[in-house]
């Protein structure tokens, strides 16, 4: 199992002129630390207009800065909006290739289509069409990276013959991923032979069937790119401390803040009737649990700050021993990588975040097998389906 860090760049109110600056620069320091400590990847989202929840609307800039400060850690778009109303697929390919060059071939290319009305409405993007827009872009971008003369004609965009430059350093191209928050999208990832980048915080039990389905379907995939990237990323929260009580205190602040920010987004499924979006929104289970536990038997809500029991099974919150135990659950269900949200709205002080990363690296990483992918069943007679892109 490998480990990564995941950045939304959440900025809590009240804002001051330095709020965003501090979040960005703290995050860059945390990526430097993660690189030094042996984490494998750092991912940054692309979101627009999502006040407090995510101020990371130009991840290619953030990741380029991270690339310049690090030497080993892989850098991921988690994810880039590849819909033409947001980013023309040509620009997606160009920017990603440039980042792959700048980072010496360390790019992981996650793709997505947004799940909020805030964003889709802001770009006047029809929610019914995002899946097919994403699919077109996903199939076109690897060709832009690998063909000297690229041309394209499809429903949502077209390109006359052009050489899309620069080309990425990784050959044939960087690994492809898609943001997965529903069982349907996990299947679609598998059908296209791309990585399953979990973006909804769930429990190992909730992920288990999704992982099984992904592994089953990817055996018969028609790859969207030039190779199959058979990998499953799980995502959860990370805070490690000397005692479970201390860890739960800060971990609760982290999870509750993130869930509260997420709750104030306008998810497509909550407001726009469409079969294209079926999931009940980010962190739904966390919010439901918080709601249930925050209601007293008398039926009136508890209004204590910090919320109710938002720490769920499998979260990497606790002492190193607790976190090892929890991560074993993820290993057991066949997740290849765990990626961690390590702060939200700077509710955990920056020095504590750095200390948590250090404790994780020193005491948790050695206890987990980081050399091999998680165990998974394979069809008889088939060789490995995962291919790592190569550096020239």
């Amino acid at each position, binding site marked *: 199992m490998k480990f990564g860090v995941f950045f939304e760049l959440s900025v809590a109110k009240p804002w001051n002129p330095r709020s965003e600056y501090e979040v960005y620069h703290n995050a860059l320091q945390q990526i430097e630390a993660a690189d030094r400590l042996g984490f494998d990847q750092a991912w940054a989202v692309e979101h627009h207009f999502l006040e407090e929840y995510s101020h990371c609307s130009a991840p290619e800039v953030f990741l380029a800065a991270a690339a310049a400060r690090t030497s080993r850690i892989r850098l991921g778009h988690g994810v880039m909006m590849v819909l033409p109303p947001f980013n023309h697929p040509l620009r997606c390919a160009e920017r990603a290739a440039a980042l792959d060059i700048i980072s010496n071939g360390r790019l992981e290319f996650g793709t997505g289509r947004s799940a909020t009305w805030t964003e889709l409405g802001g770009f006047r993007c029809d929610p019914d069409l995002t899946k097919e827009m994403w699919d077109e872009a996903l199939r076109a971008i690897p060709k832009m990276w690998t063909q000297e003369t690229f041309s394209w004609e499809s429903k949502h965009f077209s390109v006359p013959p052009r050489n899309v430059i620069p080309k990425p350093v990784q050959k044939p191209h960087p690994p492809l991923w898609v943001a997965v928050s529903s069982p349907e999208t996990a299947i679609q990832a598998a059908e296209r032979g791309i990585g399953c980048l979990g973006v909804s915080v769930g429990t190992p039990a909730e992920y288990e069937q999704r992982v099984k389905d992904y592994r089953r379907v990817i055996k018969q995939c028609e790859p969207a790119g030039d190779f199959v990237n058979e990998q499953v990323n799980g995502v959860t929260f990370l805070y490690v401390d000397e005692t479970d009580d201390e860890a739960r205190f800060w971990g609760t602040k982290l999870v509750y803040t993130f869930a509260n920010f997420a*709750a104030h987004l*306008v998810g497509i499924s909550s407001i726009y009737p469409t079969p294209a979006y079926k999931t009940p929104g980010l962190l739904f289970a966390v919010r439901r649990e918080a709601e249930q536990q925050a209601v007293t038997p008398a039926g009136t809500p508890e209004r204590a700050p910090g919320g109710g029991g938002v720490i769920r099974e499998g979260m990497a919150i606790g002492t190193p021993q607790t976190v090892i135990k929890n991560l074993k659950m993820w290993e057991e269900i066949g997740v290849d990588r765990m990626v961690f949200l390590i702060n939200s709205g700077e509710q955990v002080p920056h020095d504590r975040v750095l200390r948590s990363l250090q404790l994780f690296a020193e005491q948790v990483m050695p206890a987990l097998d980081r050399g091999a992918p998680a165990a998974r069943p394979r069809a008889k007679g088939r060789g490995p389906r995962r291919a790592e892109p190569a550096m020239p």
Partner: protein
Amino acid sequence: MPDFGRLSADRLPHTTPVAAPLYPPPPWSLPGAEILKVTFEIDKDVCLNWLPPSLGRTSPAYAHVIIARYPESPVGPFSLATQYLGCRSRMFVRAYTVQAVTDNEAALSALRETWGFPCKLGRVELSRKGGAVEAGVERGGRRLVAVSFSDGAPIDAESVRFDPVLNLRLVPAVQEGKPPALVELAQIGPAYTIREALRGKAAVTYPEPSEGDPWHLLQPLYPIAAVFVVADTELPYARFVQPY
């Protein structure tokens, strides 16, 4: 020793008059309802001006206008037009009721007293022709709101969502200088079994604004969604109440 009355508190019905209550208690079964729901973005400051302090706005701020006709109910047929602010109660999606008009006197009392809908009596129209629906509200001789729904096309009923409603239950003080006897938010979560669902385009206008019935304060800035459904629904007891 005087003779005291025999009507002890435990013998009181759910509402008055005690000899023959005006309406039955929840739950109310409301089969065959026709419901038009239109959602649109609104100005965030207008939203904040009308939300209770325990509720939060979203980004962007949005509102719903819902106009429904209930052909069967425990108090006979009635229609109900409501205007809601989309909001969050802690981490949950809710709709806070700002305006309501009904056309049935018994429904008016029940909706106000039991569920806390801020109902007034008026005229509520809803007429459907295929995939088009015209609806509106009149009160005091003014057409307060008009909704025009067009190009309705069938959509998966499971994708249609009605958020739990938060109603302000405010019982006025009966003594001079005292605060209201009750101020609370009641969460009402009607159950819906949707028989037919159409998604289309809609326009919401406020043809004759009225200071006494200020529906026009929630001006649409940008349309989000419009649905028309036929559903069997039930108006239950509140799931819980929360402080204002």
